[in-house]
């Protein structure tokens, strides 16, 4: 018992290792005729997380909890994907490997290059270019034209635009005079949102607007303009409800999915059935039937977690996001420089709204829109962009700590 306490409960990283070994041991026994590759994959994943964690501590890269939290979310996602379909699980581990490298690259690049706050035109041009490329070469997947196919894999440009958008907002609030006046800025913001709406990517449009309006509320002194923005959003929402069929379908299935269970309400009702089947402690990993839910490996992975690990498991996932977001706000509060402050706030808000939109969607709290659950859902581009964003947040946490040291030196 003492050994257990010392080895497992001692530090958060050992808990992570223990959970991973437990999951992959179980998956090894469960999936197929004792497939060794699962054990290898599990050990590789755990090893990669441990190495990254120790690198963060050894190189003194600031906040050490962000990476722990995101790795426990990722390993939960990988375990769940392995259980749903081993092919997805294995690919997700590959993506995690690439994403972990990019996490460190984002950290170092963000610290080395000092010109981030001056490139507002670059950010605007970058996101417009990505939009144009999407419209020109995009493929339509499940009703939304937001994928670009390169070779054999699909890539979602909106994930990259998300980062451009945050940087654009931050650069604007640092040097507002670079854009002629606030109306030009608003025009650019609404251009993003309208282009996303035209791609029929309602979740992303909601996400962008949420991030924008929150940051605008914090930094804009003119309350009237803020209210106009709210009014504009309501107008766009009502307008799209009456003109676009898929928006109306989403809204109607949110109000009453039971009317058309076999058709339009199929996704959401299956998700609710799965959550209800789980009960308090779930059916156990591998014993539920999440296969009935459509898109279970991306948008609806939260329902699968709720079914197999119970509502306690689901609440644990939500709490993990809470802690992650708390760390983000903590870092934001410790920064004084306006550009980096808005970047930190923007990243935190983006991922908190994204989590809210998708979890709220699958439990029928808000109309369902397709965004991925950060770090847990299957998907290369969403995992990579999330890791890059949190790599930047890691760099900012280091900066904020350095700021404190600077104050100390002044006191001497």
């Amino acid at each position, binding site marked *: 018992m003492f050994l257990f306490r010392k080895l497992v*409960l001692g*530090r*958060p990283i050992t*808990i*992570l290792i*223990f*959970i991973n070994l*437990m*999951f992959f041991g*179980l998956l090894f*026994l*469960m999936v197929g005729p004792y497939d060794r590759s699962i054990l290898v994959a599990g050990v590789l994943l755990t090893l990669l997380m441990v190495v990254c964690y120790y690198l963060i501590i050894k190189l003194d890269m600031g906040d050490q*909890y962000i990476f*722990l*939290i995101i790795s*426990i979310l990722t390993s939960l996602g990988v375990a769940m994907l392995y259980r749903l379909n081993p092919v997805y699980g294995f690919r997700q581990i590959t993506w995690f490997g690439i994403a972990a490298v990019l996490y460190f690259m984002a950290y170092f690049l963000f610290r080395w290059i000092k010109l981030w706050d001056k490139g507002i035109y670059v950010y605007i041009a970058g996101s417009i270019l990505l939009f144009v490329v999407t419209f020109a070469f995009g493929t339509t997947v499940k009703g939304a034209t937001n994928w670009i196919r390169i070779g054999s894999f699909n890539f979602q440009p909106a994930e990259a635009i998300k980062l451009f958008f945050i940087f654009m907002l931050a650069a604007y609030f640092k040097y507002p005079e670079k854009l002629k006046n606030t109306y030009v800025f608003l025009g650019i913001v609404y251009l993003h949102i309208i282009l996303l709406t035209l791609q029929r990517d309602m979740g992303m449009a909601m996400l962008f607007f949420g991030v924008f309006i929150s940051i605008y509320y914090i930094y804009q002194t003119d309350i009237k303009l803020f209210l106009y923005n709210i009014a504009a959003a309501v107008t766009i929402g009502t307008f799209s409800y009456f003109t676009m069929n898929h928006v109306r379908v989403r809204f109607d299935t949110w109000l009453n999915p039971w009317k058309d269970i076999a058709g339009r309400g199929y996704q959401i009702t299956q998700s609710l059935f799965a959550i209800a089947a789980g009960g308090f*402690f*779930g059916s*156990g*990993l*591998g*014993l539920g039937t999440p296969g009935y839910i459509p898109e279970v490996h991306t948008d609806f992975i939260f329902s699968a977690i709720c079914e*197999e*690990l*119970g509502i*306690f*498991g689901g609440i*644990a996932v939500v*709490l*993990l996001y809470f*802690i992650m977001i*708390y760390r983000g706000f*903590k870092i934001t509060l410790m920064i004084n420089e306006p550009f980096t402050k808005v970047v930190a706030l923007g990243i935190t808000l983006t991922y908190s709204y994204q989590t809210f939109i998708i979890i709220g969607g699958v439990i029928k709290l808000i109309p369902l829109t397709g965004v991925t659950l950060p770090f847990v859902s299957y998907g290369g581009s969403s995992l990579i962009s999330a890791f890059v964003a949190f790599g930047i947040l890691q760099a900012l946490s280091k900066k904020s700590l350095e700021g404190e040291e600077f104050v*100390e030196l002044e*006191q*001497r």
Partner: protein
Amino acid sequence: MVTILSWIVRYIFIAMIYYFIYSIIRLIYLDIQQINMRGRNQDYPYLKLINRKDRLGFVVQEFYDLRENETTIGRGKENDIQILDKYISTQHSKLTVDEGAYFLEDLGSVNGTYLNSVKLQDVAEVKNGDRIGIGQVEFLFVKEVD
């Protein structure tokens, strides 16, 4: 067989993940406590903790204000600054004021008192920015210049 294992694993998993959350929420609690301490009176010199609090297995504050004449540090509860570290003696060391200057003195502790990583032999004057090491903890001595 797998079914039973899976049942066990889900309970263990839920327990573990909540323990993980608990261990991080504990850190959040320590963080918030630190924010409250910032509103302290800045006139007196004070000791600021350098260690990361979560690595230590005992309660230690982020800041300690010094008393007017002398401040004693140790594990016993009669000390002005009581730290329940097992490497700290009951009466460990003392900070005294003499004509505006601060002196650090070791009270015959087992593990010694360190000033800027050098073991203290007798009495030594501490200046603003000096590091005082006692047991497992290390403090920064801060005295604002008027």
